[in-house]
């Protein structure tokens, strides 16, 4: 099998007392789009920052294309940055307001000495065309563009070096629906044409259902469930994923009103002091004694590639004997 483009092993990132990411592992294969889903405070954005070494992991390893980059110096990291780029959420703060669009998109080319300034113009123009912007835009400044156009410039900057991996952190959640649609189409088209792998970080389930090959659901710094998109949406195994899916707004009044929503009690606990045992037990409608003490590991009951971190997934391996009446089918 091919070496995965990205492999994260037992990643931990603590900001002081805050445990943003607490033991997370995942891999992304070549040309694969992994949707990393979580609500605010789940630590999903921190994962992206660690991959790009915008923040230093507390422990764990990050392997890019087979090379452990966790402890590389900034200088040693620099050549590797050609292959990994990022797309940001906020179209207003992600572009230097003093640079023209041409400067913004040509920066990576010049920095990695792919070509000289004179030749870069053509490449930039071609890239802008690819993301659906006219070449007249090259001399403009970011504030002269709409939100959707800026996000396209951000994509052009991330893709101009034809990277192997793109980390996209909520790239469409600041956009209006109609603009979001065109940017999502663009991302899927470019991904298919250029074949890059993608870590797509979002809170929006419908977006990853649309474009991801595989989904990983995060809760309080850990992955609680991961699996192929269709399989996970058809049969979510973790109670949190089930609640998340049932709470997502559905643009269909009949379905929206008839469905049974699983309303979670309480709030997300503070990552300063995550609950012992399973982190979800304080809000889980199915929690029982063992959940308060034993942290369940990611396991797939059918030994496939759809594991969930819940004691109820593998009843026979549960730490206490069977608790009557508690199954995931509810």
């Amino acid at each position, binding site marked *: 099998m091919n070496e995965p483009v990205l492999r994260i092993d037992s990643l931990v990132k603590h900001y002081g007392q805050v445990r943003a990411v607490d033991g997370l592992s995942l891999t992304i294969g070549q040309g694969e789009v992994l949707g990393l889903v979580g609500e605010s405070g789940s630590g999903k954005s921190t994962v992206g920052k660690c991959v790009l070494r915008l923040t230093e992991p507390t422990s764990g390893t990050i392997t890019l294309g087979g090379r452990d980059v966790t402890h590389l110096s900034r200088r040693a990291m620099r050549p590797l940055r050609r292959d990994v780029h990022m797309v940001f959420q906020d179209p207003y703060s992600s572009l230097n307001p003093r640079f023209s669009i041409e400067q913004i998109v040509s920066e990576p080319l010049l920095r990695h000495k792919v070509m000289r300034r004179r030749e870069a113009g053509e490449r930039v123009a071609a890239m802008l065309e690819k993301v659906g912007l006219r070449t007249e835009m090259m001399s403009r400044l970011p504030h002269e563009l*709409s939100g959707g156009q800026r996000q396209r410039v951000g994509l052009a900057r991330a893709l101009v070096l034809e990277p192997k991996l793109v980390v996209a952190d909520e790239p469409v959640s600041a956009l209006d629906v109609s603009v*979001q649609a065109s940017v999502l189409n663009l991302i899927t088209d470019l991904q298919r044409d250029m074949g890059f792998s993608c870590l797509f970080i979002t809170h929006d389930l419908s977006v990853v259902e649309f474009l991801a090959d595989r989904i990983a659901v995060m809760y309080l710094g850990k992955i609680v469930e991961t699996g192929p998109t269709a399989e996970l949406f058809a049969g979510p195994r973790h109670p949190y994923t089930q609640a*998340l899916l049932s709470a997502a*707004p559905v*643009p269909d009044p009949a379905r929206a*009103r008839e469905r049974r929503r699983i309303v979670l009690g309480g709030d997300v606990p503070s990552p300063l002091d995550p609950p012992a045992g399973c982190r979800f037990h304080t809000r889980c409608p199915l929690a029982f004694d063992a959940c308060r003490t034993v942290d369940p590991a990611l396991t797939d009951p059918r030994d496939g590639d759809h594991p969930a971190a819940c004691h109820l997934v593998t009843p026979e391996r549960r730490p206490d004997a069977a608790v009557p009446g508690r199954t995931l089918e509810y």
Partner: protein
Amino acid sequence: MSLLDITDLTVGFDTEDGHVHAVKEVSLSLEEGEILALCGESGCGKTVTAMSVPRLLPPRTTRLTGSIRLDGRELTTLPEPQMRQVRGKEVSVVFQEPMTSLNPSFTVGFQIAEVLRRHENLSRGAARRRAVELLELVGIPAPAQRIKEYPHQLSGGMRQRVMIAIAVACSPRVLIADEPTTALDVTIQAGVLDVFRDLRDRLGTAIILITHDLGVVADIADRAVIMYAGRAAEQAPVEELFARPLHPYTLGLMKALPAAAVAAGPGGRRRLAEIPGMVPSPLADPAECAFHARCPSGQDDCLAARPSLVRHGPAHLAACFHPARSGEQP
């Protein structure tokens, strides 16, 4: 006569770049106990329309014509001292950002009680008891303890519930909620929407819900107005609107949702329906259909005149010369 009647509301703002046409000739009504959604993308005029009711627009630059009647009483010409009585007591507002809407230096109990003492002349003790009841009403657990807490001690969802409690403290006839769940996670959003539903059912409060999210509209609204470029494009009961959208813009919005593409079928090159082009500048007010340039079914007559809202069903109005045929599904 409806509870609230807005007739031919036109709102503009004088800016340094010229006159901004924010809302143009909007007419709508709100019945007692009804949840009406004002829906559209940024800049469509949904917020300005709603905020014209409590007159929360910058007075120096706002040019407003038309009529707004609450229980038959004209609000646009009401002197400011009487308007202050209307605001908060008869019409109240919940804003999007619960953190900036609460005063960080007072307990939530104090802030609720302050409203009650100002508008209802309640004694200190009575206001306090009522504050506890209100927190209970909006689903905050252990309200007697919570009233002693400061805003920063509460989570985003809890803060938004406190804001709702303050807004309904004086049992307003009309509650205006401006994107009340946009800043919240989906699992929290579901609970807050339930609070609105519950308020309507128990107190009969009429609610104007400003939102860009068709999922929220489908979930909670009775009737919806889709706005585009300052005008109402379509108006219908929610079931009817989703089952039989008539305006090409409404149809475009629904098709642009990722959920729609996923529902349309798995596999293959899934694409979202895009709405090409951009929203026209609000500085101009051309006498043609504002959606014409982006419209898939636009024809020459759309340029010759501006379509007005035409009745297509008992409560279904659309402003389009070439509405979608009833067979066309979103």
